[in-house]
């Protein structure tokens, strides 16, 4: 059965690109374009992985992460952070809660697939 991945990312273009790649790789992908929607979908969908952007409208990625991790339904779903904040001081807050970080500027179709596969193992 295909693994189900949730992408929470407000940039529609980037989201579409990632989805396209992941679908091509055989994943089932659902999307959310703000934090609130992301939390809702994390609760209702049975997920295998979440890709989470940190800068989001309505509710930022740190809050979303906290809520996801507090909810027993979604707490165990591995989260990969998608970020522009390449400085560790910002990302540090998420330490221990996430499995990986992906820097958007270095994003590469091949690399993202590899990292997701690694996280799903």
């Amino acid at each position: 059965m295909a693994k189900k991945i949730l992408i929470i990312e407000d940039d529609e273009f980037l989201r579409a690109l990632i989805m396209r790649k992941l679908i091509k790789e055989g994943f089932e992908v659902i999307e959310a374009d703000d934090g609130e929607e992301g939390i809702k979908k994390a609760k209702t969908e049975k997920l295998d992985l979440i890709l989470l952007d940190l800068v989001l409208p309505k509710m930022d990625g740190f809050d979303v992460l906290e809520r996801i991790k507090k909810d027993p339904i979604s707490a165990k779903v591995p989260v990969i952070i998608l970020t522009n904040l390449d400085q560790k001081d910002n990302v540090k807050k998420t330490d221990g809660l996430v499995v990986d970080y992906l820097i958007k500027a270095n994003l590469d179709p091949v690399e993202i697939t590899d990292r997701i596969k690694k996280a799903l193992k």
Partner: protein
Amino acid sequence: MEEDKFKIAREDVEDLEIYIKEFSDFLPLAVCSVNPVGVIINVNKATEDLTNYISLELVGESVSTIFSDKKKIEEIEKEITEKGSVHGKELILITKDKKEIPMSVSASMRKDREGNYIGYFIGLTNITELKKFQEDLEKKVKERTKELEDSKKSLIKMLEDVKEAQENAEEEKNKTLAIITNFTDGLLVFDREGKLSLINYQAELFLGVKSQDVIDKSISELKDIPAFNSIMKIFKKDTKNVSKQELPLENGQILEGSTIPIIRKGQNIGNLVVLHNITREKAIETMKSDFVSLTAHQLRTPLSAIKWTLKLLLKGDFGKITKDQKEFIERMSRSTERMILLIGDLLNITKIEEGRYIFDMAPTDMETIVLSAISLYKVPIEKKKIEFTFKKPKKLPKVKMDVEKIKLAVQNLFDNAIKYTHSKGSLQVELSCGTNELEFKIKDSGMGIPKSQQERVFSKFFRGANVTKIVTEGTGLGLFITKNIIEAHGGKIWFESEENKGTTFYFTLPLSKNI
């Protein structure tokens, strides 16, 4: 008998005459006998000695011939006839040899048996010595008086000067105090013993204290006042030089405190603390970097998507592309890459300016950082046929550093060296170790930095005038960032450069003892 009697009487008179003559010659007082019309009729020996005239020369002469002032003689004669005598009149005697001698003159009227005025005796006393003494005395008194007057004058003048100086000083003091009181910066003056000797109104406002509660207190006493607590760290620094420090207050205001030693005649007589309110500047600074930071982040996401799309296009994910299309897509890719790098640099600078740039200090092997840079730049080095060497001692101590930042610093230096070196040039990298620091050196045979621009090398957006025409890429931020990274680690960075010969950059990182 009658004849005998007469004879005896005559003999008696002669004796008497002799007696009187002897007596008068014996007298040390010069005495003359003068008749009523002022003619000298007799003088004694003392008179001859005094005047140098002999008796014969004087007798029969007018008494006024031996005195300088005829009028005075007349006055004396008049007084004699009226009062019978005069005493101690001063007259000038003129001797035969024309010497003038001051005299004290006394005279007494002579009368005959019937009481008729028949002339007078005049006695002369030499008062030269007395006169001289008197004159000396007078002169001395005069001199002394003058001296006293002079010193009195100068004393008065001095007093006036002092008064004026005092008034001036008072006015200056008032002026200075007015300036200090009304100064928009807070001012505190600590004396040599570290006691607060002055605090102005603004400083009172900043710290929420009243002057009378804090004045004359020492730094350690002031420490207990909450507001002072926040500015105490300014004193911990070396006070020999001017030191500046940001001091956040509890009420949210931010002050910039400077301590300035007060030096007088080469001696440190205390410290001046200036508190400048930089709350507004800080707020603007934060807004500015927030703006840059947010903008940069927001630019990055779409750029990442563009970059990704271009990669997909090049890979043929969207179908086959022509050679022409490929070339342009590649160019777009490079431009996108550059924009991403520029945004990265801008973000770094924002962080440098916010002062939150260096973290994650860990003991690290410098060699691995250099090796990773070498492998990163292997392709361009080979492409340009640059002769590359890397020298290092066998063993190097680890250095405490923020690995990502030092990597970036090293890469920036590699990047410049390779970019600005012609093909077939040379590039030498060297690591060495001193007692307190580790040194990194990178020497290229590139185009160098023009002498006139060398001062500005580390400033933001600097690019050498000679290189902008040849290598158009480059943000001019690399060395600014590099310098900040090195200095944030407590290291130093410098360079030597000659146009068309090459440039050598050096930096050092301090070795920490407790790794």
